[in-house]
């Protein structure tokens, strides 16, 4: 974000964060309306440092942003909604559904199939139904700090947090549809200590809009006879864009699964890292030995981005800015963009730019499918290519086996069958005999 202020801060809950000198102690610069607008007419202009358009304005030569009617909006403020949170959160990564893979604009009018909780004709949850908010502090995972609340039913003593699946569903969530008891659910409920709810109940991600799976910045900056190039992928978003490089997209994707204890590790700017590719930028923490860890679904995002091979630093390039500022989207020169970006971030730059493959992980927790679409036993308990084929540290029946145990089992079956046949046969024969003797 550093050095790209006015583009990035168009999603800040404030007005005018245009450089690092922005005074965060000003109260009048708070944007109340972006969260509390209920009219759906409030929008922030994408490059105006958080300000809404006060006159009709065109973004990127195409999209018209109409002037907002502040009085109308102010007179109709109310609770936040899927639409108000979504104005920023659905568009992270620069477009609808680009980054997260489990939140996009299709949630505004969600169907039951897409999100069983946000189903507009059903439960109709807002974001804040789960992301419980006290005095403007919104509950959630914050970087390396896990989400608040316990993995159990949320009671008043739990300070109002209701963020986790278990907050409402409890630690043994599968209840029989009829009656009190269903023997099939006993084993299913035993899974919850090692398998997160999301693992079975988010069977696929990017079920609304396509999400970005690969972003190669190294190819950005190509022109066709001086004109920028935009090539569309079959799914709609660009597969090549002069400003962005080469992009890959996916829909209805199968997550990857890892042990996860609710915390993440981050590589921070200025931290030296060897160019052992792919370099991990953001990764979930967890292990099978850790009691807090469970198997959890993730979107894996691969990238290729500028790197300073001499200082061994990931480069923060300046992308957004006027011509001559070094901004890549104006001057299309990675060395200038890196110099400008790293200078503003207060980090050294050797003058050399190479491109390295990087990877980051996103925990999937939204767009929970209805129960009939959940994974079934055989999705994981299967010999080959199951969902958890790569998960280590647990004995997974069906996937894991011991040839000798299997042989002993089969032998026992065969002997039992032979025993039953002989015993039963003898009884039938002897019974006939005794009947005749009577």
């Amino acid at each position, binding site marked *: 974000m550093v050095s790209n202020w006015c583009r990035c801060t168009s999603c800040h809950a404030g*007005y005018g964060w245009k450089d690092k000198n922005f005074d965060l102690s000003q109260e009048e610069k*708070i944007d109340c309306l972006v969260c509390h607008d209920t009219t759906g007419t409030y929008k922030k202009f994408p490059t105006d440092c958080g300000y809404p358009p006060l006159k009709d304005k065109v973004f990127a030569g195409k999209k018209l942003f109409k002037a907002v009617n502040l009085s109308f909006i102010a007179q109709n403020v109310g609770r936040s909604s899927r639409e108000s949170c979504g104005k920023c959160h659905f568009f992270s990564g*620069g477009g609808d559904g680009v980054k997260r893979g489990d939140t996009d604009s299709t949630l505004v009018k969600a169907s039951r199939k897409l999100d069983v909780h946000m189903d507009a004709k059903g439960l109709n949850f807002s974001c804040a139904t789960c992301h419980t908010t006290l005095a403007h502090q919104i509950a959630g995972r914050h*970087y390396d700090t896990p989400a608040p609340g316990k993995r159990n039913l949320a009671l008043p003593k739990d300070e109002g947090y209701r963020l986790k699946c278990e907050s409402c569903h409890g630690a043994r969530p599968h209840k029989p549809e009829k009656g009190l008891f269903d023997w099939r659910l006993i084993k299913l409920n035993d899974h919850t200590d090692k398998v997160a709810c999301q693992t079975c109940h988010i069977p696929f991600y990017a079920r609304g809009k396509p999400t970005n799976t690969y972003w190669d910045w190294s190819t950005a900056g190509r022109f066709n006879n001086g004109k920028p190039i935009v090539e569309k992928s079959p799914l709609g978003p660009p597969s090549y864009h002069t400003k962005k490089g080469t992009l890959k997209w996916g829909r209805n994707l199968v997550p990857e699964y890892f042990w996860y204890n609710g915390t993440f590790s981050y590589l921070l700017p200025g931290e030296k890292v060897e160019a052992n590719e792919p370099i991990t930028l953001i990764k979930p923490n967890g292990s099978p030995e850790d009691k807090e860890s469970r198997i959890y679904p993730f979107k894996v995002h691969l990238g290729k981005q500028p790197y300073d091979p001499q200082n061994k630093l990931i480069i923060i390039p300046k992308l957004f800015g006027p011509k001559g500022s070094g901004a890549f989207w104006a001057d299309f020169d990675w060395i200038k963009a890196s110099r400008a970006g790293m200078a503003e971030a207060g980090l050294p730059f050797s003058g050399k730019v190479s491109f390295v493959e990087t990877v980051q992980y996103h925990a999937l927790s939204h767009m929970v499918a209805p129960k009939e679409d959940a994974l079934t036993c055989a999705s994981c308990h299967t010999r080959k290519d199951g969902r958890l084929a790569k998960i280590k540290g647990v004995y997974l029946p069906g996937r894991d086996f011991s040839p000798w145990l299997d042989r002993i089992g089969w032998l026992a079956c065969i002997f039992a069958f032979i025993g039953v046949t002989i015993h039963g046969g003898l009884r039938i024969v002897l019974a006939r005999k005794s009947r005749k003797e009577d």
Partner: protein
Amino acid sequence: MKKLWWAIFLFWVMKVSAGAATGPGLPKYFKPAPATVDHSKFEILKKDFKSPEEVTRACLSCHNKAGKQIHKSLHWTWTWKGKNNRLMGKAHVINNY
């Protein structure tokens, strides 16, 4: 044997009564509480605002604790002090988008 039959009978009664208790339809807990205020009636909001900061001043004239609350929030600071004082938050981290 008599005891076993009793147990089966009791279980069946419980099963049937539990089934009757869960009728069709959706829970109503999730409807937002009805509002106790109509903002369009406030004089202070009935003017032609020239800047969004003017709106914020009007909001804070009643919601006089909200400003400080927002200033503490991640939505405002974009900064999160993690373990070992590592600075995170949108204003500090790097990603590959």
